[in-house]
C-alpha cells in the first residue's frame, strides 16, 4: 500500500470547518424556504392589516445597525484573543452580546407595537402568519447566538478561555455572521420589497 510514488496527503481542512459550513448550508436552505413562502404569499392576504399599514422603518433600522455592528465587534474580539489581549477580548465580546440583546429587545418592542397598536398577530391574517414566522425564526436564531456568545463571555470572565480556543470561538462567530446575513435578506424582503 506504500509504493514509491505515493501521493502526498491531500490538503485537508480541519473537520470543524466542514461541519460548520454544513450547518450553515442547511440553515441557508431553511431560511430560503421561509423567505420563498413569504414572497409567494406577498400581497395574497385577503384581510388587513397589510405591510404598508403596519411596518415602520424607524426602530427596525436601529436594530439592523446594532446587528451589523455586532458582526464587526465579534471580529475585533477574535483578533484580540488571537493576540492574547484578554481584556480587549472580553470587552468586545460583551459589546457583541449587548448589541445582539439590543436587537432582540428592539424586536420585542416592535412586536409589542404591532400586536397592541396595529392589531397584527400571527392569527390575524396571512401577512401576520408569514411575518411573525420569518422574523420570529430569525430572532430565535439570534437568541441562540446571543446565549452562545454570552456563555463564551462568562467563560472568559472566569478565565477559562485560552488562546487555543480561538478556533472554536471563530466557529460561533461564523454562525453570528450567518445570522447577520440572513437578517439583511429578511430586512430586504420584509421591509424594503415587502412594503
Amino acid at each position, binding site marked *: 500500500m506504500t509504493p514509491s510514488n505515493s501521493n502526498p496527503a491531500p490538503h485537508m481542512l480541519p473537520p470543524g470547518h466542514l461541519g460548520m459550513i454544513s450547518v450553515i448550508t442547511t440553515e441557508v436552505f431553511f431560511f430560503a424556504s*421561509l423567505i420563498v413562502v413569504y414572497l409567494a404569499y406577498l400581497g395574497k392576504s385577503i384581510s388587513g392589516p397589510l405591510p404598508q399599514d403596519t411596518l415602520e422603518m424607524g426602530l427596525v433600522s436601529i436594530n439592523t445597525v446594532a446587528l451589523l455592528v455586532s458582526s464587526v465587534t465579534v471580529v475585533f474580539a477574535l483578533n484580540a484573543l488571537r493576540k492574547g489581549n484578554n481584556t480587549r477580548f472580553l470587552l468586545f465580546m460583551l459589546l457583541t452580546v449587548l448589541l445582539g440583546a439590543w436587537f432582540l429587545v428592539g424586536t420585542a418592542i416592535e412586536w409589542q407595537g404591532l400586536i397592541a397598536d396595529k392589531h397584527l398577530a400571527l392569527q390575524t391574517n396571512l401577512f401576520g402568519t408569514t411575518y411573525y414566522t420569518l422574523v420570529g425564526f430569525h430572532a430565535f436564531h439570534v437568541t441562540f447566538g446571543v446565549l452562545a456568545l454570552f456563555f463564551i463571555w462568562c467563560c472568559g470572565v472566569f478565565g477559562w478561555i485560552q488562546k487555543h480556543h480561538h478556533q472554536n470561538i471563530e466557529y460561533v462567530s461564523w454562525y453570528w455572521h450567518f445570522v447577520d446575513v440572513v437578517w439583511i435578506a429578511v430586512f430586504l424582503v420584509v421591509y424594503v420589497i415587502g412594503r
Partner: protein
Amino acid sequence: MTNALPTLPPSKFHEWITTVDHKKLGVLYMVTGFVYLVVAGCEALMIRWQLAIPNNDILSPDTFNAFFTMHGTTMIFLVGMPILLGAANYFIPLVIGARDMAFPRLNAFGYWLFFFGALLLYFSFIAGQGLTGEEGAPNVGWFAYAPLTSTTFSPGSATDYWVISLFIAGLGSIMTAINLVATILTMRCEGMTLMKMPLFAWMMLVDAGLILIVLPPLAAIQIMLLLDRQFGAHFFDAQAGADPLLWQHMFWFFGHPEVYILIIPGFAYVSEVVPVFSRKVLFGYPMMVAATVSIGFISLGVWAHHMFAVGLSPAILAYFSGATFLVGVPTGMKIFNWIATMWGGHIRFDTPMLFATGFISMFVLGGMTGIMLAVVPMDWQLTDTYFVVGHFHWVLFGGLIFAIFSGFYYWFPKVTGKMLNETMGKWQFWFLFVGFLLTFGPMHMAGFEGMPRRIYTFMPDRGLELWNMLSSIGALVQVFGFLFFIINVVWSLRKGEDAGDDPWDAWTLEWSTTSPPPPWNFAETPTVASRRPLWDLKHPDDPDWKYE
C-alpha cells in the same frame, strides 16, 4: 488505598447506549431500521389482506388510511434512512481509512434523536386520539397534503405526531449528513485524493449534500403546518388567501430528492459489489462520479412531476417533464457502467451479486415506468392509480431493498466475523424476487384498469380481482423470503462459518482490518496510492497506481 467506590465493569447495555463509536452506532441504526422493516412489512401485509378480494372488511376505511400512511412513512423515514445512514456510519470511516467519524458525539446525538422520533411516531397509535377520539395513528398519507392536514379534516393529534416525530428524526438525519460531509472531506487517509475515494464514499458525499439541502424545507413546512394546527396560523388556509398547493411544491422539493437520497446509497453498494464479484475494476469511475453529482443536481429541479394533475401551466409542465427525462441520462450511464464492469468478467454469483444483478435489472424496469409517468398526458391518465404504486415500489423495493440486501450479504462478514449461509441466501433471493414480481407487477395492470391508490376496497367485476389477488399472493411469497433472511441471520450469528478478514478477496480498505474491526479500526492509518489499495498490496508486481 482509594476512597473511590468499586467500579463494576460496564454492562453491555450501558456500553451500547452510551457509545460514540461509529461502528456501534451504525449497527444500532441498521438494527433499528430492520426492526421497523418488519413492522412496516406487517402493515403492508394487512393492506394486501384487505385488498385481496373485493368488498373485504378486514380493515375499516380509517384503519386502512392509517396503515398505508404508517407503511409509507415508516419505510421512507424509519427503514430507508436509518439503514442507509447506518451503513454509511459504519463503513465510511473504514473505506476512507479513518478511525471514526469527524464528530462522534454528534453522531450519537443524531442516532438518539432518530430513535426517539421514531418511537414518537409509533406512540401515536395509543396517544394520537387526542380529546376528540379520532383515529390514533396518522392517516393523511406519507406526503400529508394540505388542506387534508388542517384541523378541520384531521382533528385529534395524530397529524401533530406525524409532524413532530419526523421533524425530530429529520434533525437526526441532518446531523448525520453534517458528520458525513466533514468526515469524507477531511478525514481521508494519506494518498486518498477525492478521485481515489471508493465510489461508496463519493455517493454518500452526494447523498449527505442532498440531505443538507432538502431536509430543511421539509422542516420549514412541518413547522408551518404545526403553527396552522396549534396556533391558528394560515399557511395552508385557502380562506385566508393562502395556497394549499404551496405544501405540494415545498413537500416535493424535499420528497423527490428524498427518493434519490434513498437510491444513491443503493447505487453505492452495487458499485462496490459488482466489481468484486466480476473480478474487474469498476468501469468508468470518473463517469460514475460525474453521473452521481449530476443526479444530485437534477433531482433538485424535477419536483413538480408529482403534481402534473394539479393544473400547472403548459410551460411548467414541459419543463418538469423534460427535466425528468434528463435524470434518465446519468442513471443510464451508471447502468451501462455496471454492465460494462460485468462484461467479460469472471462473475461469481454469490448472494451479494445475485441481489446486485436483481437490483440492476429491476431498477431499469422501474426507471422505465418512471419515464412513462414523466410523459404528461400519460401521467394525467395514470396519476394516483396503482400504476404509480407499482412504479415506486419497483424502484424502492426492486431497487433499494435488493441493493440493501446485496450490501448486507457483502458486509455482514465484516461486521460480525461470520459468513451468512449461501443456500439460505439464495432461497431468500428467489422467494423475494418472485414475490416481488408477483406483488408489484400486477399493480401496473390494476392501475391501467383505473384502480386508484389509497382506497380501502374495490368493487367486483371491474377487472381488478385477478390483479389484486395476484398482488396479495405475491406479498405472502415475500414473507417466506423475509423468513429465510431472519433465520439466516440468527443461524449464521451462532453457527456461521468464520469469515476471516477478507472473504470475498475484495480491494477496499475495510477488508484490510479484522472482522469485526477493532474499536480503532486500523492499527496504523493506511496510506493508499490507488482506488484499489488491497489489490496493490496483494499484487505488488502489478499495482493499480501504475495505470490510474
